[in-house]
């Protein structure tokens, strides 16, 4: 079906079609509208879901953990400070292997308070053992949520999945998009399989014991493995979903990379703007390509390396900063993935607090890359793009 949906409406619609057992949530801009819409579905009996309007995001995620371990499909949504408040229990959800699906409408962190987009919320949670998928547009945001259910619940994975979309840029932008039929979604996600549910009172289990130096390390090693196995699952689920919809889903989405000499790496809604910039600069004779990073966790290091090796220069666009570090979080990862390759990798931090990123700015980045490629010299490894 074709709809004109905002990101929030698409999220609510995807959740309606998934029909999760329990949703626990707390309102925060720019995610609130999605939850209002979903509350309407619950109020009208369009879903079977039990909805918990929690007292905070910390409690919302804690409710999700309890509900997930009880043995059922659980979803939530948040942004910014909400994700930050969940930080402690994000780790608990992941290490207890709760396949919770959480949509994050990426928003800047305080202070000063700012309701607009950047990725500092998601990047702050990058080490929590949650799978992270980033959407370019409303269509992808919808598609990612449906796929996330299969990824999270896969027996080799059993990790929570965070589907990210840019706050306001996508959450409040209305786009033309297609949805699957309800039955198609149900068939695709299939039945939830509970493993060691708390509600099985005849087979009592203990979750979350005190785990000291004799076993904690082993349990963390298991999470590493789950992330590694998730890689394959994400690809396969993407292919299967792609076959059904005619759209393609992978860890990385290259554009004009076949003969590219310089490249831009970006995630989220900026990918669209970057694509237009690449096209324009190609017309000016610069052999530039684009790599959209769809999945940030697990980080597709090998594939990225294959795609970027041989480039003369690579610009990594970060919509958050890691204060005091050498560049933003995406930059650090891309650069270490390219360790040993003769590629200059530079970083552009942009768009903090919703600062708009324009086509001409990305074209300037591409021009810079072209210069680096020609001269072999980097003026600055980290550039703050669009700051006065």
């Amino acid at each position, binding site marked *: 079906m074709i709809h004109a949906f905002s990101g929030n409406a698409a999220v609510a619609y995807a959740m309606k079609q998934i029909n999760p*057992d*329990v949703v*626990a949530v707390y309102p925060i801009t720019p995610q609130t509208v999605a939850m209002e819409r979903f509350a309407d579905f619950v109020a009208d009996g369009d879903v*079977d*879901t*039990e909805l*918990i*309007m*929690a*007292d*905070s995001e*910390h*409690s*919302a995620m*804690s*409710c*999700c*953990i*309890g*509900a*997930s*371990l*009880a*043995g*059922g499909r*659980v979803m939530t949504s948040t942004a910014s400070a909400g994700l930050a408040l969940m930080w*402690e*229990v994000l780790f*608990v959800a992941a290490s*207890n292997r709760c396949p919770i699906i959480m949509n994050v409408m990426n928003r800047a962190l305080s202070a000063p308070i700012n309701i607009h987009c950047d990725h500092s919320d998601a990047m702050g949670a990058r080490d929590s053992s949650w799978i992270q998928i980033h959407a370019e547009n409303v269509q992808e945001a919808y598609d990612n949520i449906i796929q996330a259910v299969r990824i999270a619940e896969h027996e080799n994975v059993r990790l929570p999945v965070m589907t990210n979309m840019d706050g306001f840029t996508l959450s409040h932008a209305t786009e033309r998009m297609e949805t699957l039929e309800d039955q198609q979604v149900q068939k695709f996600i299939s039945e939830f399989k509970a493993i060691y549910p*708390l*509600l*099985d*009172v005849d087979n*009592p*289990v*203990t*979750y*979350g*014991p*005190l*785990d*000291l130096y*004799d*076993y904690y390390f082993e349990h963390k090693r298991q999470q590493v493995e789950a992330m590694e196995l998730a890689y394959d699952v994400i690809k396969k689920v993407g292919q299967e979903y792609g076959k059904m919809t005619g759209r393609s889903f992978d860890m990385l989405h290259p554009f004009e990379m076949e003969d590219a000499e310089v490249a831009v790496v970006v995630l989220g809604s900026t990918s669209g703007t970057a694509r237009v910039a690449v096209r324009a600069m190609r017309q000016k004779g610069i052999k530039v390509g684009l790599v959209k990073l769809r999945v940030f966790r697990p980080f597709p290091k090998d594939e990225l390396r294959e795609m970027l090796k041989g480039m003369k220069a690579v610009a990594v666009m970060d919509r958050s900063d890691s204060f005091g570090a050498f560049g933003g979080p995406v930059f650090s990862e891309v650069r270490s993935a390219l360790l040993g390759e003769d590629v200059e990798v530079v970083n552009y931090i942009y768009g903090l607090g919703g600062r708009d990123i324009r086509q001409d700015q990305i074209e300037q980045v591409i021009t810079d890359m072209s210069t680096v490629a020609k001269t072999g010299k980097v003026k600055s490894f980290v550039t703050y793009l669009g700051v006065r």
Partner: protein
Amino acid sequence: MVSLKKLSEKEELLAPGHRLCAGCGASIIVRQVLLAAETPVVIANATGCLEVATTIYPYTAWRVPWVHSAFENAAATIAGVETMYQLKKRKGEITRDIKFLAFGGDGGTYDIGIQALSGALERGHDILYICYNNGAYMNTGIQRSSATPKGASTTTSPAGRVIPGKKRFPKDLTAIVAAHNIPYCGQTSPSFYNDLTGKVQKALSTEGPTFLNIISPCPRGWRHETDESIAMAEEAVTSCFWPLYEVENGAWRLTGYSKQIAEGKKEKTSVIDWMKKQGRFRHLFTETRKSFLESIQEEVDREWENLKKRCGY
């Protein structure tokens, strides 16, 4: 009145081999609670003594489904479990009755967990939250909490040359919980197992959120001999420091020994005598701190009179 003989026929759901201290009040409370439960239960436990000492991996003392998530979220965690149960019951996927319990210490309940508790109570989950209240963060080495009695010396409210231990009275959490207008809440003590098990059974047979605040002596933190735990819990009640009462659908009622004191059938003992038996108050028994000590007796007396009034005496 429960029959101990009957209770003794039930399975012990908290297995021995747990590593709570000798004479710990928490394990006595948990045993009594689980023996009183007449249906299967699922438990969420806040971080604390009870949690760490009963589940040192790869061992668990729990013979019931049990989950620990974090310090401040036992109420939210059990609310999630209970919500999934309600859904499965509604869909007909589960037919049997299961009850949902949360255990938290006073730190996890009065302090860091009060928001999650308040939220769960307001939303109306069908749960019983039990605070085993030993009046400090015992697990991490006896730091003061908002349940620590006035005058108690803890590692973060130490009695010094100038300051005589904790300066303020504990907050009245049971009354705060009652103000949520939940169907049932109360206070009890493991020394009066009839009162405790009776209240647990009442709470578990009540639909909606219920809460019990249970005093839990801690030999390490209270500084008394390990064999004194039950005596300390008892004297907390007889001195009216820890009155036994319940609030059922807005009606306040004294129960057991406290009711008998109010009705003149039992003698109210001195809170100062109770304090004298605990090392955490030792520093108060000097000539210079006499008036401070007396202020504690006055406060306990005043609160007791207030409670009696609320209960219609």
